[in-house]
C-alpha cells in the first residue's frame, strides 16, 4: 500500500520519534510511506478553542494537502493521533461548511473517509495485530479520550501491544479517566488540569510500569510532564514507537532520540 503520513503538528515539532516510528513500522510491514510536505496541522486546536475563522485556512490546507487520497494517489492517510483523526473525521467538514465552502467540505469528507488513526490502520485496514515487534519492558496503556470515544478504537491498541514479544502489559486503574490535557484546557483551567493529572500520574505509578504508552503525543506530553515532574522515572512512549521496536533495531525507553535511526 501507498500510505500518506499526517505527522501532526505537535509530533512534527516536538515528538518526531512518533512519526519516524510509523515510517519504520509501515516500511517494515512492506508498505510505502509518503510525507506530503505541504501539511501543517488539522486545525483541532483552533476549532476546540472556538476560533473557527482562524481554523478555516488551517483546515483548508490540510484538506488540499491530502485530497489526492480521494483520487487514489495514496491508499490511505495514517495519523499517529486519535484526537487529530477525530478532528479530521468530525470537525473539518463542519468548519468548511460553516465558512460557506461546500465543495471543500465535500473534499474534507472524502479525505476523512480514508484517514485512519494508527491502530485502526494496522488492525482494520492492513489486518495485522502481530507486527513482529520486540519490546521487553513492563508497559501500561492509557486510552486517550478521543481515540476511545470519538473514534471508538476499542481494544485495538491493546491487541497490538499484547502481540509484542517480550512486552508485559499491565492494566491501568481508572484508565478511561481523562488525563486533564484537553488542549488549551490545560492552560485556561490549569489548576483543574493539574488535579486530574495528579490522579492519572498516581494510577500510572501504581502499575509499576516502566513505560506509559498511548496513541496521542499530546496526552503523553501532559502525563509525561507530570511523571517527569514527580520524578517517577516512568517513560512516555507512543504506541507506534513500541511497535517499531524489534530485536534487530530495539528502541530503548530512555532514549527518545534513538528511535528509527
Amino acid at each position, binding site marked *: 500500500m501507498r500510505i500518506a503520513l499526517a505527522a501532526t503538528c505537535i509530533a512534527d*515539532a516536538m515528538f*518526531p*520519534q512518533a512519526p519516524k516510528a510509523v515510517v519504520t513500522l509501515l516500511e517494515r510491514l512492506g508498505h510505502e510511506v509518503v510525507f506530503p510536505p505541504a501539511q*501543517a496541522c488539522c486545525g483541532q486546536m483552533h476549532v476546540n478553542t*472556538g*476560533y473557527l475563522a482562524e481554523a478555516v485556512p488551517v483546515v483548508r490546507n490540510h484538506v488540499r494537502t491530502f485530497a489526492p487520497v480521494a483520487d487514489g494517489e495514496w491508499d490511505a492517510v495514517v495519523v499517529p493521533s486519535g484526537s487529530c483523526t477525530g478532528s479530521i473525521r468530525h470537525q473539518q467538514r463542519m468548519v468548511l461548511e460553516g465558512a460557506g465552502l461546500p465543495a471543500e467540505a465535500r473534499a474534507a469528507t472524502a479525505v476523512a473517509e480514508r484517514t485512519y488513526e494508527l491502530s485502526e490502520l494496522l488492525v482494520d485496514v492492513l489486518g495485522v495485530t502481530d507486527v513482529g515487534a520486540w519490546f521487553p519492558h513492563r508497559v501500561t496503556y492509557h486510552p486517550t479520550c478521543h481515540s476511545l470515544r470519538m473514534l471508538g478504537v476499542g481494544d485495538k491498541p491493546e491487541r497490538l501491544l499484547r502481540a509484542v514479544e517480550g512486552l508485559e502489559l499491565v492494566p491501568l486503574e481508572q484508565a478511561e479517566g481523562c488525563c486533564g490535557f484537553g488542549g488549551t484546557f490545560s492552560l485556561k483551567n490549569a489548576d*483543574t*488540569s493539574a488535579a486530574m493529572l495528579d490522579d492519572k500520574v498516581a494510577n500510572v505509578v501504581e502499575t509499576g510500569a516502566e513505560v506509559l504508552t498511548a496513541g496521542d503525543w499530546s496526552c503523553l506530553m501532559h502525563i509525561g510532564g*507530570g511523571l517527569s515532574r514527580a520524578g517517577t522515572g516512568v517513560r512516555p512512549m507512543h504506541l507506534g514507537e513500541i511497535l517499531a521496536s524489534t530485536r534487530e533495531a530495539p528502541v530503548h525507553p530512555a532514549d527518545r532520540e534513538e528511535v528509527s535511526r
Partner: protein
Amino acid sequence: MSTFLGMPAMRAGRGPSPDAAPGTLGGVGRPEDPLHWGATFPDAAKAALENEQLRRNLGNATRTIRTKRARVVGEVPDWEALRDAGSAIKADVLARLPELLETLERNVTARGGVVHWARDAAEANRIVADLVRAKETDEVVKVKSMATQEIGLNEALAEEGIAAVETDLAELIVQLADDMPSHILVPAIHRNRTEIRDIFLERMADAPPDLTDVPRELAMAARAHLRRKFLSAKVAISGANFAVADTGTLAVVESEGNGRMCLTLPETLITVMGIEKLVPTFDDLEVFLQLLPRSSTGERMNPYTSMWTGVTPGDGPQEFHLVLLDNGRTKVLADEAGRSALHCIRCSACLNVCPVYERVGGHAYGSVYPGPIGAILTPQLTGEKSDLPYASTLCGACYEVCPVKIDIPSILVELRAREVALAGSAPDAGDRVWKAAMKAASFAMADGDRFRRAARVPRALRAISRHGVIKRLPFPGSLWTRSRDLPEPPKQTFRDWWAEREDER
C-alpha cells in the same frame, strides 16, 4: 471542615437564616441570580481543589454512582434503542412545541387544573406568590425542583413572608446550611455525614440532641421533622419531570416519598415546569421511565413515581395550578446548534462521569445547573459571556452516558465559538492575547513552508533544558510548567529528518 467556595453576590437579608452569616456552616449563601453567581470558573475551581474534604466527598460519591449506573444500564439489552427513541421524542417535542403546549393546556384545564404562563423568573415567582397568598398561609412544602431553584422561588416567597420548606433530604440540608445545591440529583453531594449532623444540630430545632452521624439516623431525624409539616401544609409546590400533552398528565419521579406527601396531602398544588418538559403521548413515558432512573440514581426504578391529571375528586389536591416557564428557554431553542440542550431530563449522569465535575464540584460552575449540562445550558439560558464552555477537556464521557444523546462536547465547541464572537465586541486583555496567539498560529499552520520554519522554533528552548527537561518557563508557558515538565524539544523536526532522508535516497 468548611466548604467555602468563594463569595457569591449576596441577596441582602434573604435566606432562611438571615441572622447567620453565610459560611458559618460552610454554605455559600443564596445568590441574587441562581444562574450566575460566584467567582470565575477557574478561580472557583482553584478554591474547590484546595478543599481536600470536598474532593474526597465528591470522588467517593461520583465513583459510587458511576459504578451503580454502569451495572443497571448493562442489564438493559435495548439501551441504545431507548436512547435513540428518547432523543427523537425530545427533538419532535421541540419541533412541535407550540402545538403541544396548547394541547397540554387544553387537557389540564379540562381536568380542572389552571394553566399559567411565565416569561421569566420574576413573572413565575409573582404568579406562585399570589396563589399562595390567596390560600392565606405563610408556609408551603416543596418537592425538589430544578425549575424553582433556577428562578429563586424560595427567596422570592421569603420576601413575601412565605416560608418555603424543602422536603427532599438533600435540599433540606442545603437550605438549612444557607447553601446552594452542588449537584442536580444529589444537591448535598459536597457534604459528608459529619457535616450534615452538624447542620441538623445547629439549624433543625427538633433534632435529637444526641444525634449521631449514621445516615439512617440523620434520615429519620428529617422524617420526624418534616412529618409535622406534611400533615399541616395547605399548599405544596413541585416541579415536573414530564408532562404528557395528549392527556394533561404530569409526572414526578422521586425516592423518599416527600414528593408523594407534597403531591397528595395539601389542598392546593402548584407545579412549575419548564416548557421543554413535555412528551407528546402517555406511551412516550415508557421510554423515559426506563432511561431516567437508571441514568440518575443508578436504580432499575426509583422508589416512587407519581402521575396526576388535573384534579381527581376526593383524592389528592383539589386545586391544581401549572406554571409554564420560559426564562431563557426560547433563547436556547433559537440556537439550532445548541437547542438539543433542551432535551435534558435532569438525570445528572453527565455530572457523575465528568472528570472536571468530579474534581471541582458543583459550586464552581456558579449556577444551579453544574457539570457538563450546566456548562452548555447556563450560558445559553442567560445569553451572557461565560467561561463555562471552557470548563471541559472535551473528553466525551458525558455524551457517552447521556440518555437522550445530547452531544455536549460538540455544543461546547459551538459555544466556545460564540464566546470568541462575544469577546470580539468587547475584548479584555486575556481575550486579546488569545486572539493574537490564535491568529499567529493560524498563519503558521496554514502552509507547509511556514510551518517548517515555525516547527523549528521550539528548538531554541534546548538552551534552558536540563537533563532533557524544561522545568520552568515564563508566562504563559508557566501555566504549563507550574505543574508539569516540558520535554526538551528535539534537535531536528520530523519534516527536516524526512527531507534529509529523501535527499540521501
